[in-house]
């Protein structure tokens, strides 16, 4: 089965209230089910809200059917596949920004955010731990990959998903919009859309992205879900403002057709890249600028 109806949620959350956000998830799941969605994607930290700071340990969960927040989501994943994002506490009490892919009442894949922005307005690295693995995974529709916000501000995670076979990359954000100019959109929103389109084009893959809406303290979270196809064309987008669903029918077989025309993955010399990386990282002074001689 290569066809799927993908639904992306642009939603607001209650900051630090998992129970209230679970109720919102179940509501969105009902709406998406009515519209016959196969996969429903929630934005980054959909179960908790974004600007958590010292609330991190209070809202942390395990993606397990016995967890009170996850139980109803596991159950709902028998109807349609779900991608939800939350704060995960591991058995050693380390906290991650995570995303779970649930399907048929089971956890199919767990992604832990590997890049935690800790600069400017961001302070994630202060409160959370860094994930260390990027993997694509198989679903009933095809091979997928999950990334969370800053993960795709770096080129390496999408590159790794590409090499690991992802035909559909799903990106989730809680991206504070910033950069007012004379343009119609804030600078950060323009940038995100541009890189999403670039990844779809360079990696000849589907790239779907959804983003939180609403305000938290000084921050406005900008929404605007988008889906780009393997030719880099915009095939769907969510509302410019506010909450809403972005629904699109995808045929993952388009990946094959695009890649026959444009065999970038076939010709990618990953082994050579690795050797180059080993070389670059192994050479003193080639990665970090060399200290000048005293």
């Amino acid at each position, binding site marked *: 089965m290569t066809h799927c109806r993908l639904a992306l949620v642009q939603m607001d959350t209650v*900051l630090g209230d998992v129970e209230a956000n679970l109720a919102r998830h179940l509501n969105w799941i009902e709406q998406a089910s009515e519209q016959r969605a196969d996969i429903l994607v929630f934005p980054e930290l959909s179960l908790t809200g974004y600007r958590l*700071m010292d609330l991190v340990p209070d809202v942390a969960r395990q993606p397990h059917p016995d967890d009170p927040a996850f139980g109803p989501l596991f159950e709902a994943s028998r109807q349609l596949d779900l991608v939800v994002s939350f704060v995960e506490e591991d058995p050693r009490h380390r906290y991650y920004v995570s995303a779970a892919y649930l399907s048929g009442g089971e956890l199919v894949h767990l992604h832990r955010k590997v890049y935690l922005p800790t600069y400017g307005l961001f302070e994630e690295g202060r409160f959370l731990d860094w994930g260390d693995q990027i993997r694509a995974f198989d679903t009933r529709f095809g091979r997928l990959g999950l990334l969370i916000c800053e993960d795709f501000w770096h080129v390496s995670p999408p590159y790794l998903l590409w090499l690991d076979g992802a035909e559909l990359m799903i990106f989730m954000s809680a991206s504070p919009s910033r950069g007012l100019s004379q343009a119609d959109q804030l600078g950060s929103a323009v940038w995100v859309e541009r890189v999403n389109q670039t990844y779809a084009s360079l990696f000849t893959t589907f790239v779907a992205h959804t983003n939180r809406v609403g305000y*938290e*303290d000084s921050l406005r979270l900008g929404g605007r879900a988008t889906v780009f196809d393997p030719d880099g064309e915009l095939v769907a987008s969510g509302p410019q403002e506010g909450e809403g669903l972005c629904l699109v029918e995808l045929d993952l077989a388009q990946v094959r057709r695009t890649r026959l025309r444009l065999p970038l993955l076939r010709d990618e010399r990953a082994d050579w890249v690795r050797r180059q990386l080993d070389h670059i990282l192994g050479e003193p002074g080639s990665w970090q600028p060399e200290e000048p001689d005293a």
Partner: protein
Amino acid sequence: MTGPLAWIDARLAINPELADRVLTGFIGNELGRYGFERAVVGLSGGIDSAVACILSARALGPKNVLAVRMPYRTSSPESLEHAGLVIEKWGIQELTVDITDLVDPLFDRFQDMDQVRRGNVMARARMIVLYDQSAAFRGLVMGTGNKTELLLGYTTLYGDSACAINPNGDLYKTQLRQLAAWLGVPAPIIAKPPSADLWQGQTDEGELGFTYEQVDRLLYLLVDERYTPEDCLAAGFDESFVRQVLARVRATHYKRVLPPIAKLSNRTVGVDFLYPRDWGT
């Protein structure tokens, strides 16, 4: 504006429709999160409070906004009239509270008060009136200070700087003028020289010693574009002006942060007891 630095003006140009959308959303959402539907604004007759007032009215509806005019006996009658233009045009709720009786006893008690002390007392008296009206009207006090003022510390601590939320604070004065024009703020308010009207003949630019156009260009490069002072000189700014502005930003930084609390325990408010303002909302 023309001259070698005019290129910066293009960078300071904003899309006012987008700014309006973000800021009205901010007002409606943040007040809603705290359980409020109403706002209280001290309306001076100047451009900043006019913008905060109009944005509040657009976000919440004019009946949910209380504009409070707080003249002192020496205040310019023009200020009162200009505030009236905004109230009338947008159909905002209005209250006028003369602060003369509130502050004159203190002025009588300390006859040697210079005009800066007197100005600060008036600004703080207005804060008392606004916070009282906040309780009476069940609305939150809207901040009106712009980014230029905040960075220069051209504000009275716990006076005009006191507020629940501030929609204006990330717009330089010259950007705020663009938004004001787009919102339809009456022309006399936009055209007149900015003034805190704390004493007769006071103007911001007279007191600061430079114009908002000049300083906004410099602050934009220093703060937003992360130019070094040397980069600013290379761009064509006068060295003494750059030094003067930097010294002012540094000297007034205490106005932009909460007072430090001396750390004794393992967890200290403001140091490592860190929660979002919107906690649980």
